């Protein structure tokens, strides 16, 4: 079987799972600067599935594609430390403010700009938006089938994949032809750790923008070792209609952002004494809450 061309869609996200007090500004908006930027967790599960396919089918390659600001190149390096072959950073002010439709349009155009692929992996959803929309929308833009909520690629045939899906109330195994887009669920195996040898090899990989601060001796290294070049694409590089990007390409608008407010109750504070527990139970039984 010939090697497969695999693309992993990955996103750098603020770590919304660990939001401290200083993460919210007084006006109720999010202070992104106070949150650590991380590799979106389910995208790491997606990367692992991609690397497992690469391990099984000799000659396969894994390419990371990410869209975001310049610092999102970190996601590509993290991917390469774990076994990805190369990566593309899609970055342009024109993408700012894109909702999922505009984002999937841009990513779809970028994928068309790459060489033909067999499998596109992505995390099911990103923890900053939790929408799970970009995967299916990219599949639609590319006119290929999608398999969402995937847990494992269980079999690889020359023209078909068998994929196990994790649904709310069970599992499903589907057969899908390639090319296909697969979104991977958090119940899938975790991503392998960084490989020390690959960290040494790729830690100096940079995008063109990152080169601006590089020293002269580094440039010499960079120019002789092509694997250190992380490709960077702007909107113009991927043949897009600017009107379909950013705010103008986004049908959804945020009308309002509010803090989550719960109506505080006046609570009765009890001790763990027998008398208090006795009284509480009497009260609950009397007012028919229990019993």
């Amino acid at each position: 079987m010939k090697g497969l061309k695999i693309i992993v869609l990955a996103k750098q996200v603020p770590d919304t799972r660990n939001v401290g007090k200083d993460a919210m500004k007084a006006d109720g908006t999010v202070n992104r600067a106070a949150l650590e930027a991380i590799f979106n967790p389910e995208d790491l599960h997606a990367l692992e599935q991609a690397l497992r396919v690469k391990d099984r089918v000799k000659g396969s390659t894994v390419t990371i594609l990410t869209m975001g600001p310049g610092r999102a190149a970190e996601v590509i390096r993290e991917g390469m430390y774990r076994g990805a072959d190369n990566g593309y950073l899609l970055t342009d002010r024109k993408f700012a403010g894109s909702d999922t439709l505009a984002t999937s349009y841009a990513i779809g155009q970028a994928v068309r700009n790459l060489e033909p692929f067999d499998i596109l992996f992505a995390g099911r959803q990103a923890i900053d938006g939790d929408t799970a929309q970009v995967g299916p929308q990219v599949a639609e833009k590319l006119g290929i089938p999608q398999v969402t909520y995937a847990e494992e690629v269980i079999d690889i045939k020359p023209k078909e994949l068998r994929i196990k899906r994790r649904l709310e109330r069970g599992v499903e195994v589907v057969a899908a032809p390639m090319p296909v887009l697969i979104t991977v669920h958090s119940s899938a195996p975790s991503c392998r750790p960084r490989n020390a040898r690959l960290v040494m090899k790729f830690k100096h990989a940079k995008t063109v923008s990152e080169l601006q601060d590089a020293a002269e001796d580094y440039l010499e290294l960079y120019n002789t070792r092509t694997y250190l070049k992380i490709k960077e694409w702007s909107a113009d590089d991927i043949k897009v209609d600017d009107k379909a990007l950013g705010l103008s390409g986004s049908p959804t608008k945020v009308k309002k952002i509010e803090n989550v407010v719960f109506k505080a109750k006046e609570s009765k504070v009890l001790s763990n004494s027998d008398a208090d527990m006795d009284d509480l139970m009497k009260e609950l039984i009397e007012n028919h809450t229990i019993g």
Partner: protein
Amino acid sequence: MNNIFVYCEIEDSTIADVSLELLTKARSLALQLGCKVEAVALGSELNGIEKELFSYGADVVHVGDDKRLSPFLTLPHTSVIKALFEQEKPQIGLFGATSVGRDLAPRIASALKSGLTADCTSLEIGDHYEKKTDTTYKNLLYQIRPAFGGNIVATIINPDTRPQLATVREGVMKKEVRPDPSKGEVKTIDVDTFLSDTDMVVKIIERHIENRKVNIKNAGIIVAGGYGVGSRGNFKLLYDLAEVLGAEVGGSRAAVDAGFIEHERQIGQTGVTVRPKLYIACGISGQIQHRAGMADSSMVISVNTDPNAPINQIADYVIIGDVAEILPKMIRYYKKNSK
């Protein structure tokens, strides 16, 4: 024309709760908008499916009955819904935020180039004034959802594209049989004209769907535990209390992540939303994401060693102390007083 369409999820000829909840909600939105509610039922052997859909609020039921539409597959369902929406031009299209709805709705939104909001917890009708263009939009769908890991709530609108599409979380809206059920009209979808071979390229090889074993969503009393319970072993105390009270046991995400309790019992934004008459929170600090899933409980008792735990702010009773000590006492004094 320009009605509210609800995609109804069907598994083994049973309509998903979330779809009935959506019909109930769509009914109240339709009253405000002066339009009708149309349900879409795709599957096979759907004879008589319309009755339940009418009783929960549909005025019209579109039935697409074809072997190729059951079990659910993305591509054939997308093709049928896309064609139906292009023909009927709904102003609003609603889906459950389930593994079906969240697979299907984005594909349809992309095909129709319409705006879609995921995982809404509330839907309202309202106006919007756009300063830049000095335009006032009347009667838009306000799609309200938690964002940023549940730390904020965002109201999203789709001013210019139709239909306005949203997926809605299960259990956050109430299903109610309509007091004045409409006689209703059944419209048959000519599935054949919408499907082609290319829609059938993905095949289901195996499928194991289980009926839900736990039913915390509809429980009257819930005993829920958090990370503060300490161990899977300590959770036994919660099951003991639940047994004497006739309650179900739930857990916070932290307790699920720590392996104290299984995922299907998770309460909160990424789990189930509950509104029991009594919620006993044991060792739960009460992150926003957890409170969002239980704040509508009629009565809340918090058992916590920390007097400043956020959950105490929304509790009717706060018992300061250790779960391992307090729960056995609750059981003892319940037994004593209930006789």
